[in-house]
């Protein structure tokens, strides 16, 4: 009996349940919302968010108030870089991937160094880095020729690839499997949880805590870079501030997935469900014909309501 109960308390189960409820609600409020093609298109949008959230997820799992507010800046930067490297030609895709990953890793490295060596709190470090990235975007957009997605990239993101499902969703599934494997079946993954749940014990057990933490921020930067690349494919051309919306939504997706902001607890499968949940919620709010002020109030209140399902802090009286 308690097994059954605890099954229904799992964040992922809660999220999946809420997804179904929301889809149903969406279909009632605006018929056509939950049709196959539309769900697929929502999944494309969710996968963009989900890929950013993958990086956010590992940073948060790593504990010590881990959070990455610079992901939005990296997404934008990566979209701009990719657009210019490929410049509408398929030949440029591989160099673009390499350039984006390098840029994401570089800014993740800077974050990681500031956080471990100077011991700047992640929130502060990555907030500052976001400011720098926004400035950098202005600088590099000067005098660059163009920023168009390669056709192959665009169709990878938006057109059906296998079984009528676009490549990006397959990519997201692959990332999901990879993340699940990494977190559950690799030494690296176990060490992430170890530093997230008890950094000191991990240190005493020989885990290279600093290196790990730097690596996590680099991973976050690289996932944001991949998302930027895919976002370019999604929108066809790069433009400024394209990544801005991902900074806080990626954190919410992680929280909706049942990962604790305190670190060491949670996983990526839940985050995937969380990303889908968030995108469906946004989608419903777009299609329902109410005033923007009403939309925002409903959105804010629903977020709060959904949060009460997860991640409530410990009571002080044990």
């Amino acid at each position: 009996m308690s097994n059954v109960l605890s099954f229904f308390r799992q964040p992922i189960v809660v999220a999946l349940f809420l997804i179904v409820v929301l889809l149903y609600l969406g279909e009632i409020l605006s018929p056509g919302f939950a049709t196959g093609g539309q769900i697929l298109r929502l999944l494309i949008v969710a996968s963009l968010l989900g890929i950013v959230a993958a990086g956010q997820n590992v940073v948060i799992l790593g504990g010590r108030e881990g959070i990455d507010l610079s992901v939005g800046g990296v997404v934008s930067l990566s979209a701009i870089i990719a657009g210019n490297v490929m410049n509408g030609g398929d030949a440029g895709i591989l160099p673009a991937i390499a350039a984006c990953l390098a840029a994401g890793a570089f800014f993740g490295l800077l974050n990681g160094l500031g956080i471990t060596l100077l011991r700047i709190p992640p929130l502060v470090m990555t907030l500052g880095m976001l400011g720098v990235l926004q400035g950098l975007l202005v600088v590099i957009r000067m005098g660059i020729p163009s920023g168009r997605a390669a056709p192959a990239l665009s169709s990878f993101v938006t057109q059906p690839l296998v079984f009528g499902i676009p490549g990006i969703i397959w990519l997201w599934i692959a990332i999901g499997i990879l993340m699940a494997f990494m977190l559950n079946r690799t030494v690296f993954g176990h060490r992430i949880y170890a530093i997230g749940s008890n950094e000191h014990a991990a240190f005493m057990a020989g885990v290279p805590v600093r290196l790990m933490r730097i690596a996590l921020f680099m991973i976050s930067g690289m996932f944001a870079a991949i998302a930027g690349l895919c976002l370019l494919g999604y929108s066809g051309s790069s433009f400024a501030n394209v990544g801005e919306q991902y900074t806080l939504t990626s954190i919410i997706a992680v929280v909706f997935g049942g990962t604790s902001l305190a670190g060491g607890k949670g996983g990526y499968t839940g985050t995937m469900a969380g990303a889908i949940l968030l995108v469906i919620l946004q989608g419903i709010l777009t299609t329902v014909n109410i005033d923007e002020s009403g939309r925002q109030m409903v959105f804010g209140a629903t977020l709060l309501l959904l949060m009460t399902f997860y991640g409530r802090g410990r009571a002080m009286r044990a």
Partner: protein
Amino acid sequence: VNAETFKIGLSNGWVGSEWRTQMIDEAKAAAAKWKEKGVDVEVSVQSANVDVPGQIAHIRNFIAEGVNAIIVNPNSPTAFDPIFAQAKEAGILVIATDAEVSSPDAIYVGIDQTAWGAAGAKWLAETLDGKGKVVAINGVAGHPANEMRAAGYKQVFKDFPDMQIVNEVNANWDQAQGQQAMQNILATYPDINGVLVQDGMAAGAWKSIMDAGKKDQIAATGEIRKDFIDLWIKEELNSGATVNPPGVMASALNVAVLMLQGKELKEPAKAGQYSNALYLPIPFIDSQNVQEAAKQLEGKPGHYSYTSSLSIEEAEALFK
């Protein structure tokens, strides 16, 4: 004429789009043109992401620097009244561009955003023969330019009783959000005929329309960026784009220099809701003249916008 020297401050409080960068660049180029005429126009630029207090500080910095004129693309329509009053007190000419300001101490030189919204709606109504279902994808809710544009299209649709706006959404002038919004709308309103979407998001909306294979059934407004215009021609889209040219600041600069020279406007700036506007013409691109627009943009980067501005001579024509 003796060599004159004018110092002009340009303030831009948001750097989130290429349009803004182009705006500053064109203004700088306009200043350079004055040099050829023997008028030394020195521009001093403040352009960074700032909040409203930050942009008020821009103006204060200019006052401290002792400029002759300030041209501002304002972050808020109403927030600058007190500071503009101070600038005027200090003998500084203040011109707002791109978005109107309520201050009686400034004039606005730029396009009429209401007319901008109306132009797109008029094109859409005519294209659809005055009937059909339409959705509107707007920019940032609460932003004055956005609300004026919305007022503009609503006014037009009053004259077309068979045009029905089935939904209005906000996608924050963000291309990806515009694309997502369009995608959601297409799922729930599969039978729409037209889309009113503002620049910045139109490319995204069109992407969703094309992905859904509906580019031949739907007419939608478009953008003035080179990469969109190229796409428009290539895909033969049924589109029309009202131009909000990045050259507005350059136009404002030319007007400013002439005013600093002591010239008087033939018709004082008295238009608009704040009775301080000097409206510039709004070009419109549709399938008839899109090729010409493309010609102007040839060789430019993809994010470069179709532009127009008052030349010095055109500006002079406005003065006595």
